[in-house]
């Protein structure tokens, strides 16, 4: 069943991709093939593969329970927040929070999570910024 849903999504993707290829505005200077032909070939491969997946699905994988799904969803939200807050908070603070959260959700106790999250953040900062000189995001505090 999962595969059929996946195949339908793939087919829609192929149709969307083909449509987006057809509305590419061609410039007046073009080669013999043009910018549309290759994407259209790829779209048809994508569509064919999707149809085969719909017709001959594999057995469904083991999907996690709703709670585990929320777990992954929450991690995604945290990572997106991290991506956006990195320039605002600065590397060390943002990373300490994100690493603490991930360590906690992967099964550490609250206190050891905070310790290992801060250690991860400071460790990466020390190795990559202080030793190797990589420029990391600077927050209001300068680190």
């Amino acid at each position, binding site marked *: 069943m999962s*595969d059929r849903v*996946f195949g339908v999504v*793939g087919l829609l*993707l192929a149709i969307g*991709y083909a449509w*987006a*290829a057809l509305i*590419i*505005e*061609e*410039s007046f*200077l*073009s*080669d*013999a*093939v*043009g*910018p549309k032909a*290759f*994407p259209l070939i*790829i*779209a048809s*491969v*994508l569509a064919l*593969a999707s149809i085969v*997946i719909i017709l*001959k699905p*594999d057995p469904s994988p083991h*999907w*996690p329970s709703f709670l*585990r799904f929320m*777990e*992954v969803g929450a*991690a*995604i939200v945290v*990572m*997106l927040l*991290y*991506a*956006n807050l*990195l*320039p605002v908070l600065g*590397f060390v603070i943002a*990373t300490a929070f*994100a690493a603490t959260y*991930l*360590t906690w*959700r*992967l*099964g*550490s106790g609250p206190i050891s999570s905070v310790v*290992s999250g801060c250690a*991860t953040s400071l460790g*990466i900062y020390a190795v*990559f910024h202080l030793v*190797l*000189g*990589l*420029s*990391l995001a600077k927050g209001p505090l300068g680190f």
Partner: protein
Amino acid sequence: METLSSLADGFVIALTWQNLLLALLGCFLGTIMGALPGLGPSNGVAILIPLAFTLGLGATPALILLTSVYYGAMYGGRISSILLNIPGDEPAMMTCLDGYPMAQKGRAGEALSLSGVASFVGSFLATWGLILLAPQLVKIALLFGPAEYFALFTLAFATLGGVASTNQAKTAFAAALGIGLATVGVDTQTGVPRFTFGEVHLYDGIDFLVAIVGLFALSEVFLFLEHRHGKADADTSKITIGRLMPSFSLLKSCTPTMLRTSFLGFIAGVLPGAGASLGSFISYTFEKKLVDKEGTFGTGDPRGVAAPEAGNNAAAGGALVPMLALGVPGSGTTAVLLAVLLALNITPGPLLFTQQPDVVWGLIAALFIANFMLLLMNIPMIGLFTRVLLIPPRILMPIVAMVSFVGIYGISGSSFDLMVMVGFGVAGWVLRKLDVPLVPIILGTLLGNAMENNLRRAITISNGDWFALIDSPLSVALWSLAVIGFVLPILFGKILKARMRRMAKDEEGSIVD
């Protein structure tokens, strides 16, 4: 003779303090990454590419660092196979069969050092194979025109699923998805924007490094979050390492096995669609048929440890041949190494050997050096690596995630790229659940543009005649191979995969090398 003098030049390049240090660092990190379950060679190299890139290393030093990681990971995979019965990466799964029983008998130290020696023999011979074979392949590749290149790319995609692929539709889907991603951005030939939906960030196209790190490293973090399993928190203290040096007679009895399987593994590595996993599988089954007269394979026979390790390391070296000589990788990890080359603005392929021989030969010399370092590192220092296995994933995985973010942020400094990377991580997680291979996606994003350019060049040269694609005997041959390579697994893939699975239980959704 010419080859030897080029190799000597390569050693001159590789033997600087900086390069030796980088090789040492790469070997060390690679062994750790290979040893840790869940971080295979592709993951290891993927996380480190953006770092090597942002540190501003030159082409040769960066390549030396990352290929050392690659070779190191191939060595490291065996450690957890032998001690914990969990393969550190997929090619090492055959090593569990005899390695773990040996460890249970109190011969873990011998198994580790013997497999270290076998790994050395395998990669040493394969590096020589690379030196001898790659220049020959370059001579053939110089005959290729755009039409042949287009056929060659198709061949690479058609065979990428591997002989053991169970669902070719999913491989084709993944390849098309990857190539489709590559077409996002301004068209290189006419300058019109494609699939950008007016988003300025997309005009440059999607950075393949963002895609690779997201698909490989972050999806691994999501898999761990989903399971939150503690099975990798295994306790190695129960196992006694025992004597560390294998006895001379043991080495002698395993030598013919190592030589045979190195050869087999190398061939498996060079051929498209085989890769290191199949190399170790073929080596093990072949040796079992040939020398296992008393039925001791599977119960801790040293030859059963030497065979797959020599095989998978030789395959790792063999896989570098098509990657360097043709610019078309045959396995997952070499696809990631191709990304390194492209990120450094080096176009692999026949011209690389003539235009930038220093890069090629410096790299090959570095492979030899890395190999010796790994041998020295892997026998006396094995205790250190076994201790690394005790780091639980709950500490390790956040570090992996954060280092991935640091690398990508270091390249562009934009939050947009980080969000795209998270998107790829989620996509990678879902696709791995659905058993869709990730390597064709990566290869698609890497080669998509080159593939399209060659197609358009071929058609333009022939004034719009599409039959130009099958005009020369060479391209017809390549197309037929592509068709055979794609159809064969549909017929035999299930049987082969079932056999591999029966012999060694497979990890869910692991990245196939």
